[in-house]
């Protein structure tokens, strides 16, 4: 076999390795637990479903185009193909076809996802905030409405980095920032929202399983960004109420009259 052809074969195979190893990486990753973390939210199923749908769609296009590239390199290698190249400047029908099909697909994708987006970010449940989360360098300050169920009253409960959420109930967070941008990222609840100084942003979800999970800051907020870590505990209504009572007891023991004006500088 001439050296040039051998080189052509090897280079073509290198480009074939792209889709082969690409698909293999995604296929093997879940076995090593390098994959979407467990979802414990009601809306997460729609997000994950959309992720898998786009993964399948782009996967097909990826494999198809990469294999076409490999095949053309293999077949039209100058060391293999004889005679001159095909003299052609394009094809009007092909251009129309490969414009309209992706356009329709992308438009479908755009419309298909709107409802999920609206559910997560626009259709706010009609309720008062379950908790106020105030981000600051480098912690999550939490403020539960006291026994009166209203935020901003003297009986509010103050905590840091330790969010508790009742399972199977709508939960509404009022998100604020005291200083710089932060992002309230709950990987297992498929929630992410930047906290912006000067803004009050509502965030809501319904947890479906109990357990303890991470709260991560996902927007650069300074040198200690990496350690701005919180935990969210999802528990039954009874456990949640019991926990809330114990926290009140603790707070009242140490801090008889919490004054909202000084306890948390509110923007």
């Amino acid at each position: 076999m001439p050296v040039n052809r051998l080189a052509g074969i090897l280079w073509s195979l290198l480009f074939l390795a792209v889709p082969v190893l690409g698909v293999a990486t995604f296929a093997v990753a879940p076995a090593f637990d390098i994959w979407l973390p467990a979802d414990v939210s009601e809306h997460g199923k729609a997000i994950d479903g959309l992720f898998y749908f786009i993964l399948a769609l782009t996967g097909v296009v990826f494999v198809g185009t990469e294999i076409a590239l490999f095949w053309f390199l293999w077949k039209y290698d100058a060391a293999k193909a004889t005679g001159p190249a095909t003299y052609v400047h394009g094809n009007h029908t092909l251009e129309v076809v490969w414009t309209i099909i992706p356009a329709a697909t992308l438009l479908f994708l755009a419309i298909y996802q709107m409802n999920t987006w609206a559910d997560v970010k626009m259709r706010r449940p009609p309720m008062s905030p379950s908790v106020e989360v105030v981000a600051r360098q480098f912690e999550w300050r939490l403020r539960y409405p006291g026994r009166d169920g209203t935020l901003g009253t003297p009986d509010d409960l103050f905590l840091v980095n330790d969010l508790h959420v009742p399972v199977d109930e709508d939960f509404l967070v009022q998100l604020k920032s005291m200083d710089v941008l932060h992002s309230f990222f709950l990987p297992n609840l498929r929630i992410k929202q930047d906290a912006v100084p000067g803004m009050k942003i509502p965030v809501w979800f319904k947890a479906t399983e109990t357990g303890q999970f991470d709260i991560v800051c996902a927007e650069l907020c300074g040198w200690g960004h990496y350690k701005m870590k919180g935990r969210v505990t999802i528990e039954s209504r009874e456990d949640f109420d019991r926990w809330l009572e114990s926290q009140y007891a603790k707070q009242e023991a140490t801090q008889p009259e919490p004054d909202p004006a000084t306890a948390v500088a509110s923007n």
Partner: protein
Amino acid sequence: MSTITTPAAVHHEPTVSAPAPHQASFLSTYVFSKDHKVIGLQFLFSTLVWFLIGGLLALAVRWQIAWPWSDVPVLGKLFAQEGGQMAPEFYTMLFTMHATVMIFLVIIPILAGAFGNFLIPLMIGADDMAFPTLNMLSYWFMWPAFIAFGASFFVEGGAASSGWTSYPTLSTNIASSPGAGWGQTLWLLGLTMVGVSSMLGSVNYMTTIILMRAPGMTMFRLPMTIWAMFITAVLQAFALPVLTAAGFMQLADRTLGTGFFSPEGNIVNNWMQATGGGQPLLWQHLFWFYSHPAVYIMILPAMGMVSDILTTFARKPLFGYRPMVYSIAGIAGLGFIVWGHHMFMSGMNPALGITFMVSTMMIALPSAVKTFNWLGTIWGGRVQFTTAMLFSLSFVSMFIIGGLSGIFMAATPVDIFIHDTYFIVAHFHYVLFAGTAMGVFSGIYYWFPKMFGRTMNEFWGKVHFFLTFLFMNGTFFTMHILGAVGFPRRLADAYHYETFHHLQPLNAFMTWCAIGMVATQAIFAANFFWSMFFGPIAGRNPWRSNTLEWTAPSPPGHGNFDFQPVVHRGPYEYSVPGVEKDHLMQTDPPNAAATAALAAAH
């Protein structure tokens, strides 16, 4: 027309340099030169040096991600505060400056500054740029930027560390982080100077391409490289003023006590902003109004160059020339109305997010059309696996990945989970490194003979390609699955989170690949400098290409052409039936067989 030498007679002349019209001093020839080729090479050398610096910054970032808080080998002694480990604020500075250097001092100036300068007059058949002095200034305005960014590493508190996006109030409040002092101010000044340089280049490129084309060079006979440079220049001209204005507003917030980007009474780290009433999101809108078009400024020229290189080494006309031009224009037009997709999680009205989601989905369309046309170009060709071709092919192969992964982020609900994770880091490295940088390497191997009169070594070029391709995918492809876990970017140490604690071995693997990738570039550097002096003499047209620059001497002398080029056809007439040689240059005299073949093909 009697003074016009017929190009055919000139092609085989062995003359190496055009007659120099006047004697010039060393200083005006090589330093303060107004010759577009010298300026182009000045941009090339400067940006390659910064490319190395940016790469080393990336390695330091990767070191911390793979082995957090462990002693940094060799370099640790240089910068570490105690022992050899890096502090978290140092890590924050590293990734800020890695992105800043790569975007503002490498990608944008190497595409527009180096290739744009060198190629535009040569490929349109002009003797120089329309405004040579302006052109010289566009290079020298980069130096205040080099100095500002370079010096910022050595000022108190270190260089900027609020990310390359510089989001307020982290960037505006001087107490927010150590780098938010002088480092951030120098960063803004440097950015402004890069903007001035780009703007001077931009008006020059537009004027030159519109007014100085050779006789017969109609707009639809321009090579794709020039179309891409032209549309990039238009993008720069319309988008840059917004960034410059925003930069001055941030500078005023920091130094004059204005409050464009800070709300009333904003206190960070016990430091209160003097005035308020502003909006942190305003900066994001202004910044991305430039920086999203800038994403296309960072890839369109590479797309153009790759289109030209693919046709040369497939020996075939470009598939769908006009659709290719229209899709670049489409990308540029839509590029102005998609900036909000960087802000889906920012607190911007979610209803506005839907608008930006739809426009973002639609901008995938022209990219898809371009990819299909590149595949159509290779189909039925006679592929020659030169180093330049391999890099161009890898551009196509990798751009497919980078383009498709963008759809995940465009889907707003999915973006909730993957926003600011390694999924987006994978995406833009596939577009900008695996895409643009491959296009740049391809362009260097391809036009090196025109720049220096000699060809680069093909064997070592292929070794360079193979290892870069391997290590690049090892580093960046794995970022996709890291992103699928939700692994956040910009964290100095993420392993104390339960969700991410098991990801260290994967990150170590990626860092080893990154080290391999940077080390591989030594092969490129050696080949580059060795070939500059000892490579085989190239002659005018070593690749048997069609475009005008290959009719000029290698390297072209002052004034470029030793004859007046007259253009008779488009740039991609390869393998024309009935024509003896397999390519017809744009200057080759009209050919009856070619005219017949062209008529038959349409």
